[in-house]
């Protein structure tokens, strides 16, 4: 069974991406270090906030992220999505397909749905992410994830939750740029978002 550890930076960026576009569905990828079957999700690369059911730019972005990850000795460890309807915490048909396309690159990749209501409710100790693992031809929800320090999905440290909260309070999401943004303005670094990373480190 694969194990996944979620870092502050990865978690914060996924949350900030969804916070920047509360009226839209957004999705992106998690990058991580691989150690056997253990993945440490160190970063998030935001992809899109419009036409998120459509494939062409997702295909381009996925290929570029794959090469970028390789150059940093990282792998694509997961797919995240935040739906425009905060009540939706299941993978949609297109979400499932996108997540599946990542399995072709990394058969142990997991999918995550952002649970905005859990973030708002400030549920203690657990990140606002619902993980899904691919088994038996479908994505299966792991509802007890992040609840157990020794479980399949753990937070790197509880600071991750506080960091994300601080950043959302100060509207740090204006500083995150996804591939959609990059296509409109190529000077935006959607792969790294370095300035934001700095802010996350010092939060």
């Amino acid at each position: 069974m694969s194990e996944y550890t979620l870092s502050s930076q990865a978690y914060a960026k996924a949350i900030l991406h969804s916070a920047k576009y509360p009226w839209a569905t957004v999705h992106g990828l998690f990058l991580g270090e691989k150690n056997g079957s253990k993945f440490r999700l160190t970063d998030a690369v935001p992809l899109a906030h419009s036409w998120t059911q459509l494939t062409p730019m997702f295909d381009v972005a996925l290929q570029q992220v794959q090469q970028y990850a390789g150059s940093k000795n990282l792998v694509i460890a997961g797919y995240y999505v935040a739906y425009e309807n905060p009540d939706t915490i299941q993978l949609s048909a297109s979400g499932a397909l996108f997540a599946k396309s990542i399995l072709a690159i990394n058969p142990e990749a997991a999918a995550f749905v952002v649970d905005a209501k859990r973030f708002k409710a400030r549920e203690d100790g657990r990140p606002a992410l619902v993980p899904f693992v691919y088994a038996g031809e479908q994505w299966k929800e792991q509802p007890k994830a992040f609840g157990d320090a020794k479980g399949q999905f753990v937070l790197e440290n509880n600071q991750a939750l506080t960091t994300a909260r601080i950043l959302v309070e100060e509207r740090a999401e204006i500083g995150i740029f996804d591939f959609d943004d990059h296509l409109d303005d190529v000077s935006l670094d959607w792969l790294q978002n370095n300035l934001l990373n700095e802010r996350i480190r010092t939060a």
Partner: protein
Amino acid sequence: MSSLALLAEIRQSSERLPYEVLKLAEPLLNNNQLTSSTEDAWLVYEQVFLAALDEGQIDLAKSLLHILRTRFPASQRVKRLYGLVNEAAGHPDESQNLYAEITSADPTNVLALKRVIALLKAQGKLALAANELVAYLDTHGNDFEAWLELSHLYLAHHMYRQAAFCLEEVILQQPANHYFHLCYAEINYSMGQWDIALKEYLRVVELSTDNVRGFYGIKVTADRIIEMLASGARAGKSRREPQALSGLENVPQVPVLEKLSLLATERLVAAYSANNAAAAPAKALEDWLKQ
């Protein structure tokens, strides 16, 4: 520029900037500078009301609404705002009743009709929302934004063909807007209609400059078509078997496709260097083009 002027500009551009609107309006409200003698006072109250809803400041919204109601006690426009605040406060049934009252008194009240649809959408009743929207479009077929909204609803259900149809209606009304051709291209790509996708991506770059998304689209589509023709030919399929080459009915010859792909490559490189591309993405493009 004064706060009032800035607020007016935001109203003009119809951009949704709730945080900025509240920041601008805060001093005006606190210092009681919005009196009935201020020219745009009521427009500003309405604008700040909407911003307050967006920012989740329901109490502020309610107090502003009270001011508006006092000034315009019988207004249908204010009634719709009551519908909105009820939606925001989580009382959809109240909203529904209010909108029903407005539309039965005036069946041509477009804003209220749209609110009914938006309410259904917010409640996750997408199929019902789509039905209402289709009915609305029967009478208001020239409302291209409504066609866009319908395409959005269809895409949420992965009904690509229906979404494409909506985009066709939009393009009929707004043929020079590259954004709609782009959306149409991407829907067609997603459903494997490669010939239309390519044509539309080409139209996008014809109608705009340095359209990086358009160039990426041309390249991936042209390359995909070349690949499919090659694998189709390898499998011994021909143009006489339409289902084998579906989505490839009207494509250019391979040499032309190759030239298009090359042109797209060259244009991408040019656009990146002319527009201060960030280092990591520029490297990513370079590597991607090599693969």
